[in-house]
């Protein structure tokens, strides 16, 4: 990468301001009536409280600053751990405190939040606001991130998918010219590197294995996508004990003992720290990791020593397939008094211009593309062509988690059983996933 970080920052700052002006002008001009009034000064001096997960703190600050600059609305950002955002929002709404107007929970929790009335439908707003341009959202992301049954509750914010990052120096030292194309090759490379270098504190991979749906569940979902499996069939019935799912769990088990010790305790902090310190050869992570890997100010010691590729598949030559492991949607709180302003904010925050600016902002914001247009953004393409290429795998056939009522509990049950199997508390992968299948049928079908 030839340009310096300082140049990049200056360039992005200017681009960001220009983009904001364009985005706000578009919303203001096209929205007409109530839709555009946030940008015509009607809300000036008002406050908007948004609840985000802690990894979006940088993005939250960036959004708050830009929105206030353009509209005069003060945006107060509260962050909580990623696995507490849905419960915090629900408690806030159910208790009558109603502090939050807007939030961005994991898309899997939309069904439960909607069932409890913690978020409100925005179908009418979206249909009456053509500037939102729903056709521009990445199609495989749009439906799971937005819908609960036939109602729209969310707008895609952070289109998270995992990619396979690799440390080029470690691979080279161990005689690997290319990153793996299949999960089998991946396991072989991880095992070789760990056997060669673990005595020096270098391991084949950091595997996210902490017992959380967004962590261990994500590691499993990556493999399920690679083996061509699904969580649900086309009729919405669970197929979590399919041969593909069993193969995915066994593939995860295969590298468990060769990963950074120990996967069961590896969360984002531990895994990312090992990656930035150059102590692991591979890490499955969100594509924004590349932006931070290239930023020494973020503590990266692997600047210009990394590469990124698609997640492996079952067989070589298969098309890459993305796994929508995380992903967050903008929602409007169920009992907010600022529904109009909240809707204006989420429409703005989900716009092409904002998403494009967040993709390459420094310090890194942790945001991935949510729209076709931002995926094709020129700055993103020129600064991070590999990330852009990998993110294009979201365009077709991406694997999404179940959504709808009880989906959160379903994800937790799967994660608990995966952890039980990987820690030796279950006899076989098939038996483990049969248990999950039975529970999922009770929760998601009955």
């Amino acid at each position: 990468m030839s340009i310096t970080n300082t140049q990049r920052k200056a360039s992005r700052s200017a681009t960001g301001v220009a983009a904001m002006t364009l985005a706000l002008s578009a919303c203001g001009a096209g929205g007409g009536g109530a839709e555009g009034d946030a940008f015509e000064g009607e809300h000036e001096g008002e406050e908007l409280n948004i609840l985000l997960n802690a990894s979006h703190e940088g993005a939250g600050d960036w959004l708050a600053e830009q929105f206030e600059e353009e509209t005069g609305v003060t945006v107060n950002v509260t962050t909580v751990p990623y696995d507490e955002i849905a419960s915090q929002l629900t408690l806030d709404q159910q208790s009558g405190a109603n502090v939050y107007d807007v939030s961005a929970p994991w898309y899997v929790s939309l069904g439960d939040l909607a069932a409890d009335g913690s978020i409100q439908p925005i179908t009418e707003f979206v249909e009456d606001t053509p500037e939102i341009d729903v056709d521009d959202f990445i199609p495989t992301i749009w439906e799971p991130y937005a819908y609960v049954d036939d109602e729209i509750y969310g707008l895609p914010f952070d289109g998270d998918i995992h990619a396979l990052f690799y440390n080029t120096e470690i691979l080279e030292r161990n005689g690997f010219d290319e990153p793996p194309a299949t999960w089998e090759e991946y396991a072989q490379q991880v095992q070789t590197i760990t056997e060669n270098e673990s005595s020096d504190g270098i391991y084949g991979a950091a595997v996210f294995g902490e017992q959380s749906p967004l962590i261990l569940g994500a590691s499993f979902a990556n493999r399920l996508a690679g083996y061509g499996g699904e969580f649900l069939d086309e009729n919405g019935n669970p197929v979590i004990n399919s041969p593909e799912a069993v193969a995915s769990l066994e593939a995860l088990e295969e590298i468990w003992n060769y990963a950074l010790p120990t996967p069961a305790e590896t969360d984002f902090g531990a895994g990312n720290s090992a990656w930035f310190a150059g102590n692991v050869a591979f890490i499955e992570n969100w594509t924004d990791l590349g932006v931070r890997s290239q930023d020494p100010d973020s503590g990266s010691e692997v600047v210009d020593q990394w590469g990124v590729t698609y997640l492996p598949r079952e067989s070589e030559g298969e098309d890459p397939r993305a796994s929508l492991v995380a992903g967050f949607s903008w929602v409007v709180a169920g009992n907010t008094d600022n529904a109009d302003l909240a809707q204006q904010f989420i429409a703005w925050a989900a716009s092409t211009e904002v998403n494009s600016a967040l993709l390459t902002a420094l310090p890194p914001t942790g945001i991935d593309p949510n729209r076709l247009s931002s995926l094709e953004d020129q700055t993103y393409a020129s600064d991070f062509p590999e990330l852009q290429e990998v993110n294009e795998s979201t365009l077709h056939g991406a694997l999404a988690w179940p959504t709808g009522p009880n989906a959160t509990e379903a994800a937790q049950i799967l994660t608990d059983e995966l952890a039980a199997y990987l820690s030796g508390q279950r006899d076989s992968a098939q038996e483990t996933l049969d248990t999950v299948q039975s529970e999922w049928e009770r929760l998601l079908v009955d």
Partner: protein
Amino acid sequence: MSTDTLQRAEAAVAPPEAPEKSQTFRRRPRISERFHHRLFIAPSVLVLLVLAAYPLVFIASAALTQSSLGNPFQEFVGTENFQTALTSSAVQNSLTLGTGYAFGVAAASTALGTATALALWRSLRAGAFVRTVLLLPMIVPPVIVGILWSFIFSPSGGLLDTLIRRFTPGSGTYAILSDTTWAIFGVALADVWEWTPLVVLLVFTALLSQDPEITEAAQLDGASGFQLFRHITLPMVAGTIVAAFLIRLILAFKVFDLVYVMTSGGPGSSTQVPAYLIWRSALQNFDVGIAATITLLLAVVVTVVTIPIFLITKRLRDD
């Protein structure tokens, strides 16, 4: 309040110096007096209602209904939640684990705490500084204790790992918190470290309040060393030790923060104690009905196992 009322109140609490006053004390309070009595105890009753009765009614109601986090009491389901919880292996295992954990941790804390208190009592010259340092773990917030012990047990450069690697080069990685057998012991160690000072404090105070004349008399009769401890000191502080065990037992039944920080209930379900399961059911799975049911079941278990200890404490104190 009128002067007349004040005078009557004074009369009621005054010592029965004369027969007339004693008869006045025994007479049935008049309506206005009863009203004032009730008025005075009303705040206490109100506090009890708010702090005890309301949560209990809420939990019982949630347990008998289909209740989610944002929408409680949706539909009366009778004992369905109890049937689900009682037939769930996760709940059964959690209650069993929680009971075993509580007894183990309480016993370890009580033994260590008593020994430490005795050592402190024997060497009173150690001074306030040492006693303050010994109490520090109890002052540290539990979340920090969890983080601290996670670092100690970390298989990637943790204190334990570093020491093992230093003294036994080439040995494997010891990941206590990732081991289904040892993880609960890792949490228990942190728990014992954190709360043993409470036992030290209670037993040490009891030791200080001993009547020195009894000890001196026993020494004059020839008692010394272990004999003195076994027959004089221990009986005098036994009630406090059992009471400390009881407090520690109840605290251990409620452990949540250490599990949350150190293991997230894992690996698998090996550290899924009842409080963690309740939290997960309510705040992760949004199923407040099941969470309330497990809470009631836990309350029953705690009551059943603590009643005998209450009785022992009472008997020792009476003796």
